[in-house]
């Protein structure tokens, strides 16, 4: 069973406290419809578990089939460099049908970030290496498509509907109580 090879670190985009009982890591692609579907589920999961759960999002753009996926990931990283990663992450998924240059600039302005530096960063591919590093680490960890979730270090191979994820996370938090 494949395991998460790149431990969660300060370099990651993290929601939730370090003291959380369990960490959910998602490898995702902003243009992947399944990730769009999972986006709303993860929100509910976070609400359900509160401080017991830490959530990490890592980039896994399938660029050959999703032409806007890399630029979307780089846009989120640009926002992250300005302290607005999660806001951009959310907006990208909420506007998944409109991904592309104009939307990236519009969302950036909406978050109070100037459009020009983003345009430059996308042109220079400033955040490309960061995105590729996520991707490479994911491949090494056995990410086989998007979204791929890890609960703790364990790849979650089952379905990722709300109930499935809740059960799997509960299981990771208190394995003995549930398997008894």
């Amino acid at each position, binding site marked *: 069973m494949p395991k998460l090879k790149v431990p969660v670190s300060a370099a990651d985009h993290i929601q939730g406290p370090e003291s959380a009982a369990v960490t959910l890591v998602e490898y995702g692609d902003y243009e992947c419809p399944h990730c769009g579907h999972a986006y709303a589920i993860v929100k509910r999961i976070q609400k359900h578990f509160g401080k017991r759960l830490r959530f990490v999002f890592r980039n896994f753009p399938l660029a*050959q089939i999703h032409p806007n996926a890399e630029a979307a990931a780089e846009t989120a990283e640009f926002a992250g460099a300005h302290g607005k990663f999660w806001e951009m992450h959310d907006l990208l998924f909420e506007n998944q049908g409109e991904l592309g240059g104009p939307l990236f600039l519009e969302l950036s302005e909406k978050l109070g970030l100037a459009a020009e530096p983003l345009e430059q960063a996308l042109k220079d591919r400033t955040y490309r290496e960061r995105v590729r590093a996520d991707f490479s680490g994911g491949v090494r960890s056995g990410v086989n498509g998007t979204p791929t979730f890890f609960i703790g270090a364990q790849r979650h191979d*089952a379905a990722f509907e709300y109930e499935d994820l809740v059960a799997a996370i509960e299981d990771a938090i208190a394995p003995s109580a549930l398997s008894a």
Partner: protein
Amino acid sequence: MTNAAASPRPFASSGQGMKLEPQPQKPAGILPPGTKAPDFTLHVTPDQTLSLSELRGRPVVLAFYPADWSPVCGDQMALYNEVLPEFQKLNAEIVGISVDGAWCHRAFAEERHLHFPLLADFEPKGAVSRKYGAYRESNGFSERALFVIDKEGVIAWSYNSPVAVNPGADGILQALENLPK
């Protein structure tokens, strides 16, 4: 690229719509490491063939898979397509093999923008898959079996994934890295 509400996990179930697991098959066993990789010649396009022996001198990855056109927006072949730069860094050649015909492979590769060869184990059907122990008689298609062949043409690593589970690329990369330089 659809199936938005798909669950179970879309990538882990590529090939929905076909009966992938009618009955658990006795694992006849794929060829193990240490075996000389059987040579073969298959169509790579409708008018071109490729032989394994032509690739001698560098590592080769053979990825047998059940069928083109799995109804998800990324599958095993799409993943390898994305990982291609990493295979190339390791000087390896990757080829996909299924029982689909060369015209089918062409359409599939074009639609998914695949940048590596897909071989047609089409006539006689599944003959090469059988040589590698990677044919599912009960289904009439190939197993999801991976082979890393060293530059001398000997199998260095092989792995047979449950047919409904996309095995990913981590095992292949590890095996390529473990090859003697």
